[in-house]
């Protein structure tokens, strides 16, 4: 017991010395970034990938710093739910005292955190929550770089109707905030244009068997497009089941699966030939030829030995955008908030960023369309 205490004492002393030594470098000022990511439960799907993107960005930025600032990130597990996100945000704000916070992914969690950052006057930079409510008027401390569900949904429905000449659609969506929201926007736009929605099939995140759903879809007659809103895991099963049932192109049918930002790069390799003809919006297109994208992909592959997903790219862009604000003079919560709001045509790996008065990114070049080719590669459709 005694030795343990001694060890503890020595440890604490060593850390304090290090900290003092650290602080002695007057130049090493730090921008503290709090990261609210789901890191336990099924939502850790997001957190694990977000962390990789953040890790790469930090590594690059802290080599030389920005305007004399280094960047430090504190992760907090917000578990994709309102209460744990609230607790995680309060802990971050009280104990880490961040200059800016990034996250959450799940809309419910982000919406629950927003009043807290508002009160604490710390900017929240969100990428992955699609609910329209995140950037409704009156949330002056929350920013979103991802196009929201309405922007994506209207665009998708429009393209489905006009470019694919689709008239009959079947909606498949998970019963979550994001799934229902996305499906609703598509339905409203598509029916307004004159299209017909044959069925809206929602399912829980615990549904195992998509053969039954595919069987039902197969019995609905002629279908042109199947907008699908679900994450990678269930998405794979749906795509394979629809092909097995002979509904989609991948299974010899006519229907085309379409969708918004849900599935990562590499999905088609996992899904195999069932994914043939899938057309979807991605927010990160690794086939883009911009230097920023190429450099990011190369660096990511070197660090993690894998191709980056849109989640990796989102997190990377969040940190890089903050660095850009710091370059433009941001140094604390208030100035970073103002700097974010003043962002003009910032060019990130997912596209460019410029916020409207509700702090929603307005740039549609973040919406990339891609189609899965017979060899499971994808082509960029240049629809935007």
């Amino acid at each position, binding site marked *: 017991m005694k030795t343990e205490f001694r060890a503890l004492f020595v440890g604490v002393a060593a850390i304090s010395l290090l900290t003092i030594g650290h602080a002695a470098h007057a130049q090493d000022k730090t921008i503290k970034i709090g990261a609210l990511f789901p890191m336990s439960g099924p939502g850790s799907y997001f957190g694990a990938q977000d962390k990789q993107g953040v890790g790469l960005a930090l590594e690059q930025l802290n080599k030389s710093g920005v305007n004399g600032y280094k960047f430090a990130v504190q992760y907090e597990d917000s578990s994709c739910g309102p209460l744990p996100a609230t607790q995680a945000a309060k802990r971050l704000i009280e104990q880490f005292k961040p200059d800016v916070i990034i996250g959450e992914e799940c809309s419910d969690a982000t919406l629950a955190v927003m009043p807290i950052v508002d009160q604490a006057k710390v900017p929240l930079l969100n990428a992955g929550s699609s609910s329209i409510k995140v950037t409704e008027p009156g949330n002056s401390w929350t920013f979103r770089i991802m196009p929201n569900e309405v922007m994506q949904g209207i665009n998708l429905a429009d393209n489905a109707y006009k470019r694919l000449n689709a008239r009959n659609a079947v909606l498949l969506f998970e019963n979550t905030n994001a799934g229902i929201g996305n499906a609703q926007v598509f339905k409203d736009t598509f029916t307004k244009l004159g299209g017909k929605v044959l069925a809206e099939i929602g399912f829980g995140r615990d549904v*195992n068997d998509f053969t*039954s759903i595919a069987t039902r879809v197969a*019995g609905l007659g002629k279908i042109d497009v199947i907008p699908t809103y679900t994450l990678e895991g269930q998405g794979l099963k749906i795509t394979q089941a629809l092909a097995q049932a002979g509904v989609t192109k991948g299974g010899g049918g006519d229907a085309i699966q379409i969708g918004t930002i849900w599935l990562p790069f590499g999905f088609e390799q996992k899904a195999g030939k069932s994914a043939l003809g899938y057309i979807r919006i991605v927010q990160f297109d690794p086939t883009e030829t911009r230097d920023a994208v190429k450099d990011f992909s190369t660096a990511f592959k070197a660090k993690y030995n894998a191709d980056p997903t849109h989640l990796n790219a989102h997190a990377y862009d969040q940190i890089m955008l903050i660095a850009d604000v710091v370059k433009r003079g941001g140094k604390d919560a208030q100035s970073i908030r103002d700097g974010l709001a003043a962002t003009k045509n910032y060019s990130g790996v997912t596209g460019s960023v410029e916020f409207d008065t509700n702090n929603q990114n307005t740039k549609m070049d973040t919406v990339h369309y891609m189609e899965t080719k017979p060899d499971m590669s994808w082509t960029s459709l240049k629809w935007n």
Partner: protein
Amino acid sequence: MTTTIVLQQAINGVVLGSLYVLVALGLTLIYGVLVQINFAHADFVTLGAFAAYFLMHLVGAGYIVSIGFAFLVGAALGWLINASIFTPLRRKGNELLPLIATIGVSVMMQNLMLAWFGPIPYAFETQYSSEVIRFSGIFVSWQNVIIIAVSSVTIALLYAFMKFTFLGKALRAVSQDRETAGLMGINPNQLIMLTFVIASALAGMAGAMLAPVLVLTPFAGTSVIVKAFAIVIIGGFGNVEGTILAGLIVGLVESYTTQYLDPGLIDIVVFGLLLLMLAIRPTGLISERREENV
């Protein structure tokens, strides 16, 4: 067209149902002998799935061999959980203690698997999953044929074991009356261990067969376990025949609910059925002599 759909959904339901049966049989066997619930049973399913996955991808084993391997992994887990949790707690008298202890085990296992395997779903492809048999509008993948074949054989073997072997008869004797088993000259502790090993081996095996069907993440088993509870009850606690029947019924209810109502309503229908069962026939579909619970 309509009959095709009805038939197709029947096939879908039976495939899913037979997987549910394998999971629920384990729960029911343990309950029959011990009147206790292993909450970590679901995570045995998940670990069985990962065991099969890694045997196939790291060692290059065939799918059928991997199912056997998952069976063994499950058996080992069953031995472990009985030795470490259920045996020490048996004399403490409170039937809820093992339930809570195994909730702890479940949380631990899920998060260890999360640390090891990560949260990104694995694509568990076998050479059978993309091969589809088609005849007059009906489609069945070879994977599903294997599921039905392997689970029918397993269930038949288990049934024969319980009905015709001395050990199996002893197991049933213990589940009905612990004193009788003592009179038969059998050590009940060994029987209990055997039950756990068999039950968990079934769970591991179910995992290997569910893996290509469900979304393979460290949380995969949880989606099955709540339904397995429902099946155990509908079938009558501790009743093997009832559980088999109930599992198939729940599988069919699931596919027909998807077809004619909404997949979001599956749980409401299944658990509505459960409450209805409890109200009109609390001993389960096939009643045995377990009157003391009613």
